[in-house]
């Protein structure tokens, strides 16, 4: 009925009319406001904090500093004090917080706080942090609690090491006739979600803690708040209104802990803590960086024989999601290619940079860049078309992944994705075209894959209630972050219940006391998991509808069907009732009523997932893989190094397209994000570790003028355990873009452009170096 249709999003009209409310729109007269003071230094001891002037400043209710609290917070590894205690570990870290009756007064007092630092020499890259005598950024690491699947190495700067050992590397080498090595580098950067983060906390006299937060993960926040602050889970209520973009940046716990501690300090009054854009960039976490070294070999038929992979992820000063990102990159370490022999060490390393949290692609975008650059280097050296090389090695049903789980019947069709991308780009991906004296064009292709990286017991739920006109209300724990999942879920409910789409009403806000539990709106699993829960809730409701109707109509339940807002006898449509007559309980003409309202409930929990072995990586952590391919065509001006992405294409096997326009929007959005990431984003630092581009005047993100022509194709190999065969598609299209752009530019220039962002200046420099040194034609 409404499946595979481009229905408008349920929240669209509120958004275009300015009636959509976000976290920072919430104001109450009792509300107090917080402002943070942050460190200008990347690494420094805090010698003294002078807060007296701030305490006495107008409107101030409380001033909080690090030594007020002795606990650490942390998503997977408890390494972060709520406010820096004795030492700041990155530029922008919070050193004090002021609560006042207005934001202006809080800022005024904040500016009166004086901090004396002893500045230390910062560590500014993973490889530097891994030097034998590097200073320890977290000397007390052995005391940190952490979840079992990550493996910190106390006495070093390593917050996690995930190992993959598959096959026999020696055999891999001996079967290879061509071997290449390659290194890539990605700086840390930011998500730049449109809405800066906000958290509001209130502690009631009953002990109940009420939080409103711009969060992708209200249930994670609830769980962690309970654990960190020893609050009964039932006494924490986390509300997630509409969120203005997350991209992973709001998937952990961010401002909530600080807002809670601030409220605690002022007797439980509601305290609002909202980031300025600059704080959102530096103080709250951004995206992870990477230094990687890859080595791979192929046999005479160009079949991959082995990969040796060292991924050094730059976590910044704290671990947050970064430890799990390095783990996810290990689980998927080869990209979507079958490789019989693998060694991978994926390491998450502390540095004195703003810390990293989840980011669209979650380890796969970084890993993908390293792998796709390596593959293109092979293709270039062996004079094989990069499309052919990928076609030969693309992973298929029956193959084993790096963690040695076997890809089953639901495996997507990456071969067709490669074919379609090749076709959309007009083939000849190994040819550099000369347009005129100064201009050349080149194309590229990359593969991509992603599985959600999440706890083995990740869950979702759905509750359906009904209205007197037969329409229903759908309540799930999925947060609307701009991705449109709630609309997709409504389409699934509409299809299942035979109700018009407009008669499926969606509860937009998530409230952990009202909404069923849902791990997090992250990892591209919202539609998959909550979709399965919605199907179960609909089945439950249908059963109840038929139960009521069967009593009234005096027919067996199994002979009834529900369709077109009616429940009726299969062979005689006239023997039936409207849903309006049934869903709130049936009322006989004489006033007698039966059965009561219909309440459907559905649930989902990931099945058969396991952790991976600490020494070999063997396990089954991957619920489902989405496979796809991407490519670009670029035009390069050889005089300036400036280039334009003319065309960007993607073919992706999503199992089933529930809403074509929303699905295309997600794919194109991911490609755009990947383009910005590759061509212009990333923090720059001075040698003292201070961020030089911590404002949006200087931190450039892609604009609509930079957009190429997009082409998107979907393949629908059903995911047998997905709702109507659908699998995740939210993040995936970001993954192939760094490889695609760098491969096209490397081919166009005959150089290796392995460091992101690939700016025109870097391209020109590579061109000039090449002609100066008269480098041989091998790349």
């Amino acid at each position, binding site marked *: 009925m409404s499946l595979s249709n481009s229905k408008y999003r349920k929240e669209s009209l509120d958004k275009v009319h300015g009636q959509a409310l976000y976290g920072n729109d919430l104001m109450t007269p009792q509300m107090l406001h917080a402002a943070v003071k942050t460190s200008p230094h990347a690494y420094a001891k805090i010698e003294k904090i002078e807060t007296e002037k701030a305490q006495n400043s107008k409107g101030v209710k409380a001033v909080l500093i690090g030594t007020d609290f002795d606990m650490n917070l942390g998503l997977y590894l408890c390494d972060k004090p709520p406010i820096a205690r004795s030492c700041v570990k990155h530029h922008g870290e919070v050193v004090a917080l002021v609560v006042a009756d207005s934001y202006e007064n809080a800022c005024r007092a904040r500016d009166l706080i004086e901090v004396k630092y002893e500045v230390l020499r910062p560590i500014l890259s993973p490889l530097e942090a891994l030097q034998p005598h590097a200073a320890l950024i977290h000397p007390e690491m052995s005391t940190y609690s952490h979840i079992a699947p990550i493996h910190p190495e106390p006495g070093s700067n390593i917050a996690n090491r995930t190992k993959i050992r598959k096959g026999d590397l020696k055999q891999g080498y001996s079967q290879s006739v061509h071997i290449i090595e390659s290194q890539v580098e990605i700086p840390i950067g930011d998500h730049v979600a449109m809405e800066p983060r906000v958290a509001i906390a209130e502690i009631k006299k009953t002990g109940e803690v009420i939080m409103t937060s711009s969060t992708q993960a209200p249930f994670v926040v609830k769980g962690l708040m309970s654990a960190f602050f020893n609050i009964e889970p039932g006494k924490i209520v986390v509300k997630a209104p509409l969120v203005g973009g997350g991209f992973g940046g709001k998937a952990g716990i961010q401002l909530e802990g600080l807002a809670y501690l601030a409220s605690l300090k002022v007797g439980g009054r509601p305290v609002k803590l909202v980031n300025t854009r600059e704080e959102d960039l530096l103080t709250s976490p951004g995206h992870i960086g990477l230094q990687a070294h890859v080595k791979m070999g192929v046999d005479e038929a160009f079949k991959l024989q082995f990969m040796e992979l060292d991924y050094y992820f730059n976590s910044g000063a704290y671990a947050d999601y970064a430890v799990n990102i390095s783990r996810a990159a290990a689980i998927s370490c080869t990209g979507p290619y079958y490789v019989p022999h693998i060694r991978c060490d994926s390491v998450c390393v502390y540095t004195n940079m703003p810390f990293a949290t989840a980011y669209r692609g979650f380890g796969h975008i970084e890993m993908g860049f390293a792998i796709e650059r390596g593959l293109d280097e092979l293709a270039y050296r062996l004079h094989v078309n990069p499309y052919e090389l990928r076609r030969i090695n693309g992973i298929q049903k029956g193959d084993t992944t790096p963690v040695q789980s076997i890809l089953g019947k639901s495996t997507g069709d990456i071969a067709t994705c490669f074919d379609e991308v090749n076709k959309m780009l007009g083939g000849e991906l190994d040819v550099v075209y000369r347009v005129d004296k100064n201009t050349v064009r080149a194309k590229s292709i990359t593969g991509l894959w992603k599985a959600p990286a999440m706890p083995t017991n990740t869950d979702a739920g759905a509750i359906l209630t009904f209205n007197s006109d037969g329409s229903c209300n759908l309540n799930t724990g999925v947060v609307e972050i701009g991705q449109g999942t709630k609309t997709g879920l409504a389409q699934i409910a509409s299809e299942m219940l035979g109700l018009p789409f407009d008669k499926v009403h969606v509860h937009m806000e998530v409230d952990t006391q009202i909404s069923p539990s849902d791990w997090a709106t992250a990892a591209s699993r919202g539609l998959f998991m909550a979709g399965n829960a919605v199907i179960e809730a609909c089945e439950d409701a249908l059963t109840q509808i038929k139960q009521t109707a069967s009593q009234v109509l005096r027919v067996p339940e199994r002979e009834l069907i529900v369709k077109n807002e009616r429940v009726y006898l299969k062979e005689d449509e006239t023997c039936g009732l409207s849903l309006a007559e049934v869903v709130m309980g049936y009322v006989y003409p004489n006033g007698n009523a039966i059965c009561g309202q219909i309440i459907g409930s559905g649930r989902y929990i990931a099945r058969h997932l396991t952790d991976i072995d600490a020494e070999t990586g063997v396990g089954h952590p991957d619920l489902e893989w989405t496979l796809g391919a991407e490519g670009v065509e670029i035009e390069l001006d050889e005089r300036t190094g400036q280039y334009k992405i003319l065309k960007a294409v993607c073919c992706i096997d999503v199992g089933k397209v529930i809403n074509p326009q929303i699905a295309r929007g997600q794919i194109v959005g991911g490609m755009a994000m990947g383009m910005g990431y590759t061509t212009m984003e990333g923090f720059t630092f001075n040698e003292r570790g201070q961020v030089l581009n911590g404002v949006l005047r200087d931190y*450039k993100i*892609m*604009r609509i003028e930079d957009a190429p022509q997009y082409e998107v194709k979907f393949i629908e190999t059903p995911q047998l355990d997905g709702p109507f065969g659908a699998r995740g598609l939210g993040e995936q299209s970001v993954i192939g873009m760094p490889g695609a752009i760098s491969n096209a530019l490397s081919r166009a220039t005959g150089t290796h452009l392995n460091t992101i962002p690939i700016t025109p*200046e870097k391209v*020109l420099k590579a061109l000039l170096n090449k002609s100066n040194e008269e480098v041989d034609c091998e790349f």
Partner: protein
Amino acid sequence: MNSKPFIYYRPGSQAEIVALLDELSQKGLTYAFYAGGTELITQFRRGQGIVDAVIDLKGIESLKKIEFFEEKMVIGSAVPLNHVIDRTSIGSIKRALEGIADHTVRNTLTIGGNICGRLPYREAILPLLCREAQVTVLEEGLLNVYKLESLFDKRLKLKANALLWSIEVDTNPMALEISQRHTATTDVDYPIIHHYAVLDKDRLTIALSGFSNFPIYEQFDFLTLIEAEDKMNLLMAPFENQVKSDDRGSAEYRLALLNVCTKNIIEAVMANGGLK
């Protein structure tokens, strides 16, 4: 965020602003002019540019007007860039101004603010320098007219308590007028070089922004250029030693782009007005 309060004034006439400036200077109060506010607001957000008073210029009608006379356009200093872009018929001026900030910001960012602001780019001055504009300045209660170039040295050198009132620029088409603007990555950014060139009668004028720490310009005699054997050197030499290096681009890269821009100008001169 600016946590210090300031006094807000909105004078409605030339006489009122003259009186106000007198009063503030007698009291020794610091002030900032406010027209578009794009620079003030961003400064205040960073806790910079703190002043005792802010003088809103939008109450003075003549500062907000563009007037056309024969072969001349007179632009009030508080006219937003987008109004100039909409009303000028000179394509290169349009293109040069369109490079500044983005469309939304240009709705308020004024031409006077761009020229007199603290940021070192001041791109709006490039076509004005090349077209030998005249400026009217309010100083000591009087409106005085100057040649722009006579007041310009790295920035517009105004006396204390003076205000750029309006700009008068020739509207005739020139033999050649080319704006070449390059940024580090995306277009909406400060230039690493904005190269503006005008050929008029016997003179080629080139003005640059983003290349040096401030806008720079140079005039070249047309005949000398035509006869020069090394035209590239002639047109680049006055600028080369003023090149800067910063986070947006190295000096080497700026020089490479200057080279490309200069080549384009020579080609255009030779092809177009060159041998007339």
